[in-house]
């Protein structure tokens, strides 16, 4: 079995795969959650394309190309965030990490991150489905839900 060891190992690439190997995103949950809205905004087309493709067939082999675009786009967003707003990004996801990943506990850190990402990178944070005339939750100045400890 020695000659086939590479193929038998699930972590080695498929031989003869026409697609070049792709660096996986390798990010933990807190930075992903911190950047989720920016990824959703910047990669909207790729994400929707991928999900429509998945709707055609659930086979993992069916949407590999679309999936690579999704991952590359998210990688691009994270790289840009790290380059442009490193300190704010770090502060926000550190806060999420320490606060059970509750957004409401980290508004203080979120505001500078949003300001930086909006102005420098042109991203948006839009929550679909917020009732008419109501302020989106991340913009409310005095929310009922906040950290108990100051």
């Amino acid at each position: 079995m020695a000659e086939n060891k590479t193929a038998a190992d699930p972590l080695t690439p498929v031989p003869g795969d026409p697609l070049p190997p792709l660096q996986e995103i390798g990010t933990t949950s807190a930075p992903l959650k911190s950047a989720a809205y920016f990824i959703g905004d910047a990669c909207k087309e790729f994400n929707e394309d991928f999900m429509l493709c998945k709707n055609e067939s659930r086979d993992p082999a069916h949407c590999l190309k679309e999936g690579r675009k999704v991952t590359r786009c998210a990688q691009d967003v994270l790289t840009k965030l790290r380059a442009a707003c490193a300190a704010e990004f770090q502060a926000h996801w550190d806060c999420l990490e320490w606060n059970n990943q509750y957004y409401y506990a980290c508004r203080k850190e979120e505001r500078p991150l949003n300001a930086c990402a909006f102005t420098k990178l042109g991203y948006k944070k839009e929550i679909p489905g917020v009732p008419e005339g109501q302020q989106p939750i991340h913009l409310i100045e005095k929310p009922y839900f906040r950290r108990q400890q100051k």
Partner: protein
Amino acid sequence: MSVPYRQDMPPPGGFEPIRYKRYLPFKGPSGAVIFGIAMLISGFGIHGVGMANREKRELLREKTWARIHLVPLLMAEGDRDMYRRTHAALEREKEIMKDVKGWQYGGKVYNTDKYIPPSIQI
């Protein structure tokens, strides 16, 4: 010695009125006032609960959409992993079953063209 006659009369200005009512000190606001105040305080509280519920709903919306935005990314990664694993399992199967005649590699269990995820870890 004679005392001049004098009719006994009430004092000038009349007698003071008789205090037949109980004269108790003020013991606090009336029941209606207390009830009203209690209703007012409860009203504020209930309003707060309502607003907080509204906010909770929006927080849930925010969390849900954050996850929705991440679903394609995570699913794509999982798909690539699954594709590799499926391929590796097939290779292993080929290697193990090479001496068995008439063995069908990667044989299907279900009589359908739909993709069925494997029920065991591969």
